[in-house]
């Protein structure tokens, strides 16, 4: 087979690669637009890949056949564009008979999990922190003694993982393995405060106000004097990183995805 979707430079196997060999992957890793193109988010993508490889998870990506889930269009009110994207993606996913998907982004997670089924796309969809929890629980990865020992970590709940889908524990359970000091912001879990990027705000200037949402949220996180602000969403990551820079704290406070924490703990 010499199609552009199988003939690529990447060491990562696509669904087309699997199909060409008559194999079926364990899970499809839905990388997402941020994870594919945003320089900061690409590091999270790589961390997830390293963990998957380390744990010997037979995974595939869609590569050039992946396209935006339509989430930002839908939240912005463009239902047409959303459904066009959804139908296109569903055609591809169903064509490969995809059963299980892990996403690197809570927005992709929510859209694929909740909004694709009634359009004909039925898959088991999990967020990467849930997969990490599965891998840790089943001992496919283990973490001994920690480079994070004594570090203070606070987790910022992504709205589309937390309130939108009631997933609060997976990222926390994963981080328990780090042997670090986990500390909670006053507004956490169901009461978590948005980073300011959701609802397509990521792609526009904020409306007029007296403060940016990410500043409000970063302030709250920094008040705990953490070493690390942990996140589970590439957009939260951008917003919190910008917030930390705004307070000139980027030398002392790192904003890291839960996947990056695990990859670092394993020295991957």
């Amino acid at each position, binding site marked *: 087979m010499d199609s552009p979707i199988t003939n690529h430079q990447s060491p990562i196997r696509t669904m087309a690669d699997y199909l060409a060999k008559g194999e079926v992957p364990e899970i499809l890793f839905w990388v997402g637009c941020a994870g*594919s193109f945003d320089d900061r988010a690409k590091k999270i*993508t790589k961390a997830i890949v390293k963990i998957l490889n380390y744990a010997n998870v037979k995974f595939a990506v869609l590569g050039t056949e992946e396209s935006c889930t339509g989430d930002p269009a839908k939240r912005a*009110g463009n239902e047409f564009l959303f*459904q066009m994207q959804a*139908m296109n993606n569903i055609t591809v996913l169903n064509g490969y008979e995809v059963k299980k998907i892990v996403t690197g982004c809570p927005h992709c997670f929510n859209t694929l999990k909740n909004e694709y089924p009634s359009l004909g796309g039925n898959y088991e969809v999990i967020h990467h922190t849930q997969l990490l929890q599965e891998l840790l629980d089943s001992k496919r990865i283990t973490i001994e003694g920690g480079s994070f020992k004594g570090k203070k970590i606070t987790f910022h709940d992504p709205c589309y993982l937390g309130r939108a889908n009631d997933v609060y524990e997976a990222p926390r359970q994963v981080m328990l393995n780090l042997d670090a000091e986990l500390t909670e912001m006053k507004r956490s879990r169901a009461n978590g405060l948005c980073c300011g990027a959701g609802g397509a705000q990521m792609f*526009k200037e904020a409306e007029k106000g007296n403060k940016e949402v990410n500043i409000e949220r970063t302030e709250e996180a920094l008040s705990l004097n953490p070493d690390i602000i942990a996140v589970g969403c590439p957009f939260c990551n951008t917003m919190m990183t910008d917030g930390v820079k705004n307070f000139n704290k980027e030398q002392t406070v790192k904003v890291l995805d839960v996947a990056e924490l695990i990859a670092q703990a394993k020295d991957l």
Partner: protein
Amino acid sequence: MISSIIFIILFSAGAVWFTINVLKIRRNILIGKEIDRKDNPSQRWKIMTLVALGQKKMFARPIPAILHLFLYSAFVITQIELIEIVCDGAVGSHRMFRPALGGFYTFLVSFIEILSVLAFIGTIAFLSRRNLLKVPRLVKSELNGWPKLDANFILLGELTLICFIFMMNGADEVLYSQGLSHAENLNDGSLGLAISSHLGPMLFGGMSPESLHIVERIGWWGHIAMVLGFLNYLPYSKHFHILLAFPNVYFSNLLAKGKFTNLESVTNEVKLMFDPNAVVPPPSAEPMRFGAKDVMDLSWKQLLDAYTCTECGRCTSSCPANITGKLLSPRKIMMDTRDRLTEVGKNMDANKGEFKDDGKSLLTGYITPEELWACTSCNACVQECPVNIDPLSIIIDMRRYLVMEQSAAPTELNMMFTNIENNGAPWQFAQADRLKWSEDL
């Protein structure tokens, strides 16, 4: 005899007027679009028991929750005593249940009295929170004018009501101890009411029997007049939540909060674009509108939400946009929806039940695009609402109208749409480069 007739007339008039107004509100709610919220009755009863009856979500903020619990339980339990008051009023008896119920009667009325004292304390605290402490969410700009007055009316009304109860019971206690009460004398020397047997002699101890009878009657009639007045005030007030909270929670969204509806009308068009031979239901004869411009474009549940809102502002105080000074307030979205719906209802009343275009609409007339575009769709407002109101769904429906009917999205969002259309990503990156991140692995 005369008093019985006056009572029956007053009571019937109150009940009829209330029913008329409730039916009007029901009619207004039903101009909303159909949505299925009748599935899963067992889960719905459960959520209603926990959230509405059990006040579960209130306890996310314990202090107002406890104060509210005082008022709520006093209100609910008092309804039992009201049965006796109505019976007494209709047949001209006095404390007709006491001889038959005996000790249980004393217990019940005493229990109500204790709750009434707690409710009195709660009401004073609520008045202070609004007017003295000025709790931020209770003094926001959308409450200026009528909403603020409405809130204070209700609280002052509750105080008055409780005062009438203690006038009635207190004076009656004094009369009873003197053998002068109209209640049947069971030779027990006291009605034995937990609060009034002490409060009555303190307040009214030195009064003449004539004055005591007058105080007792003022208390009794004042009480029932307040109850009927309150009942008929409800349909004009945010306080209607005491009734609508129950159906509103019953008809809650049971699905994940992140799941937004997929517009079926859009699905049909998209299917036809993919395959001109696709079988889709024929478009309806009525002109179709994508998203919501006015209240009739919303679902009946969204309209029920609007009437259920009691303007507590938990949504607004947790809204990231509002916290950071943006114009958006989820509470205002609900208040605007209700106010516009009330206006539409009056329009229908004036035009034989048919709505005549008044050139106004919820969007722009009440809610501005600036408010809608400030939303991060974070669901904090939905999470916070103690009666499961969903302001977010209204915001999204109105964004849909702005985008799909008016192409009125902010420029940057239009660029994002174009990028998704052309490149399959919200930014200007080529789909062919989607795997580039992996090349240096």
